[in-house]
């Protein structure tokens, strides 16, 4: 098991002046972020701010042009996704990543394709099933016939097969109805209590921040504000600029969801 360490000293991931982009245009123009072990951090910001790009530079899908990505004290900027996967960084992309024609169970096994030991895969699946009962209940169902929310849960369960230290989630709630969305955010909290560190990108800024410990607001390739998620949620300035002005007079998202 990886360590369940909530102490403030343990920095798992640190981005320093990260510049990255596609072609000649730079999407990230010097991003600084710090993520502690066991924390859930939610990145919010308008479209095109570079939220997904941050995740890609961490997982290795997009090597940064400048700056350092330090994971567990080691600069991993420019390392391949495969190396980073072995290191314990799992990237769950925005689009559906399950094999629709394969059963839930086979999808989980596929998640452990690179792991040689069947015993290890089995233990990890048992652990995942504990957190996500759906993988046992629907084990012989084709993943394609699950609802969007159920598929996302299976995807999250699949990440556990790598025993990840850091899970990168790109818009996990996209295209989900409110009930499924709540299930997914509960699952993310579940992962966090199981000791996983999570970096989350979310358009549903309120729900995302409500599920997170830390929040960071990204705008035009720069981190504008970082802070405790609950504080950001209540900050009237943040609410006006990034959470939609009309929500100012409403109660916070958490109580809305519980209605």
């Amino acid at each position, binding site marked *: 098991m990886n360590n369940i360490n909530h102490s403030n000293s343990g920095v798992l991931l640190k981005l320093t002046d990260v510049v990255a982009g596609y072609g000649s245009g730079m999407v990230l123009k010097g991003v600084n972020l710090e993520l502690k072990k066991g924390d859930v951090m939610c990145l919010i910001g308008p479209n095109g701010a570079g939220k997904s790009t941050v995740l890609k530079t961490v997982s290795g899908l997009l090597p940064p042009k400048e700056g350092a990505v330090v994971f567990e004290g080691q600069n991993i900027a420019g390392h391949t996704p*495969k190396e980073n*996967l072995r290191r314990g960084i799992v990237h769950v992309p925005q689009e559906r*990543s*399950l*094999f*629709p*024609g*394969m*059963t839930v*169970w*086979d999808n989980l*096994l*596929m*998640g452990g*394709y*690179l792991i040689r030991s*069947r015993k290890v*895969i*089995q233990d990890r*699946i*048992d652990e995942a*099933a*504990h957190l996500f009962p759906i993988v*046992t*209940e*629907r*084990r*012989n*169902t084709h993943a*394609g016939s699950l609802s969007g929310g159920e598929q996302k849960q299976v995807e999250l369960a699949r990440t556990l097969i790598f025993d990840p230290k850091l899970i990168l989630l790109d818009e996990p709630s996209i295209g989900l109805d409110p009930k499924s969305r709540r299930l997914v955010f509960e699952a993310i909290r579940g992962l966090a209590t199981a000791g996983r560190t999570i970096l989350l990108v979310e358009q549903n800024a309120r729900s995302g921040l409500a599920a997170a410990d830390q929040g960071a607001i990204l705008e035009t390739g720069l981190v504008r504000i970082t802070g405790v998620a609950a504080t950001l949620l209540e900050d009237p300035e943040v609410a006006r600029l990034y959470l939609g002005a009309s929500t100012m007079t409403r109660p916070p998202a958490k109580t809305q969801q519980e209605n």
Partner: protein
Amino acid sequence: MKLSKKGASPFFTRSGLMRGGVLIAVLIVMPQLFPQHWIWNMMFFTVLYAAMSVAWNLIGGFAGYPSLGHAAFFGIGAYATASIFKSSEILTNGWQPFFMLPLVGLGCAILALPIGYIAMRVRANIFAIVTITLLFVAQTLGYNLKSITGGAQGAGLSVAPFHLDIFEQPFYFAAATLLLFAMGIAYFITKTKLGMALTSIRADEDKARGVGVRTTGIKVITFAVSVGITGMAGGIWAYYLGFIYPQFAFDPLITIAIVLMTFLGGRATVWGPVLGAAILMPAQQLLAYYVGGSQIYLIAYAAIFLLIMLLLPRGILPTFLNKRRMDSMATKGDLSGTSTTPVTTGGSKS
């Protein structure tokens, strides 16, 4: 809570061993019951085509790359065997060509590596077109490389010195051995990670790469194994006929037959292609036997193919197994089911 039903299933299951045993028994006993030559002949072709269908299923079924060029390798295997055993000097007791088969198969497989590497740069549907081109290239070469193939005049092998009463038997058992070999590979695939990898390639190749499957290597090697077996089948066929022509060695109908058999029985299953061959080949031969040496079976092929597409798009075996699974779930009132069947059914492709 232990969930290890499929994850830790042993390599040899009791039912798997039993089915294998029954098949071997049937392969040995069946021909003994029928002394007629035409039945031996029919069973030889059934078993030979079953072996080729199982081989085709490795790449066309499990990996979802429908090759239409397998007949090219059938012909290459046939002509390789023919050119080795042109003269009767090396054919003392008649068994040498069978022992030469693994080498013929290996040759075909090695030849397939660069071809597969290039052809598989395109995805499934285009791959079908690329491979059918390969077949016609091979056929044209068969007609024109006269020094090797004898061109349209055909190529002769020395006649097998088997007693006429049992003439078909050695060929039959060679084909049966090839069938068991091919099925062994198919079984191995369903029982190991390789099967998962191939299924994931069929389902979505980009995602398969995403979880770490080395798609190119696996595809090309599976293709090579598949056509290697097909080449060996061509070798047995050439030796059995004793005289071969490009028209029949590189025959698109061979490909069509094995594809049809696989689709009828069930793609991506161990037993489906065998079942398909056991239905279609005797049907074709009986049709020829009773109606006369006609090409009626070609019309029948087209009709059968349409019927499969309409009524059994997944083939007999997967449809049957799925129904049984659904029934057992319904009686248990249990949605999770406990099926350990290796049958994985991909999306309906092509």
